[in-house]
């Protein structure tokens, strides 16, 4: 990661990351793990990097997380 948001957007995450399809497949489990205080990133490696690199998947993640919070 750099200190510059434009560079971050252009270069994306620098580690291994999931694809959009893999992200969707694991999104429900990832968000539930986050909401129960578990280590979601250890359980689903590559998810955080993908959410940094893909604005659309990041929006879906934010929304599902907000929906579960509203349901709690």
């Amino acid at each position, binding site marked *: 990661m750099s200190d510059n948001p434009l560079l971050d957007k252009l270069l994306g995450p620098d580690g291994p990351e999931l*694809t959009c399809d893999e992200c969707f497949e694991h999104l429900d489990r990832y968000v*539930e793990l986050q909401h129960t205080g578990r280590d979601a990133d250890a359980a689903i490696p590559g998810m955080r990097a993908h959410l940094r690199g893909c604005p*659309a998947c990041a929006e879906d993640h934010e929304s599902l997380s907000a*929906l579960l919070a509203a349901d709690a």
Partner: protein
Amino acid sequence: MSEAVGVIRTPPAAERDWVEALSTPGRARDDAVERLHALLLRASRFEVARRRRALGYVRDNLDDLATQAADDALMAIMAKLDTYRGDSRFTTWAYKFAVLEAGTKVRRRAWQEREMPLEEEGWSRLPDRRAAPAGDLETAELLGAVRDAIADALTPHQRTVLVAVTLNDVPIDVLAERLATTRGALYKTLHDARKSLRARLAEQGLEGATA
């Protein structure tokens, strides 16, 4: 890209009840479909409300958009019911389909009457290395090097996708629709383009500055 490790487990009873009810023809199935649709509609309305600002100028009935998203999510869920593994609550698994459908519909509707920005408009945001602005020289040099790498190291298709998504903020699913492809395929193109840019920076000894 890496593979996530999935754990296959048996869904707990309440989750199995959903799957069983939705899989068995009869009255119970109709009731379950109705309950599921109500949940999906709630999730779709929630998502449309969250994204309402993106639709500021749109005069459509946004509840129609949410209903369409819930309908499409229900169809997707029924087609993929056998892939539910119980890794999360059934309702969380179902919600993600509604969030995806509603989010995609909102982004596409917001861009429906908008022209796609020209590639050159994105380029203008990147400084020329030969005319680096005052301020953070290291960042300016990096941005200039990235600008050169976009010109030299990418294919025309990679350049189009990278500039549209990262510089012109075109949502990737909107771009996918315009280019008649999928979000996943475009993200792969973006991923490969970023990899090429990083490789070019590394050749110039600049890679460490972005880590």
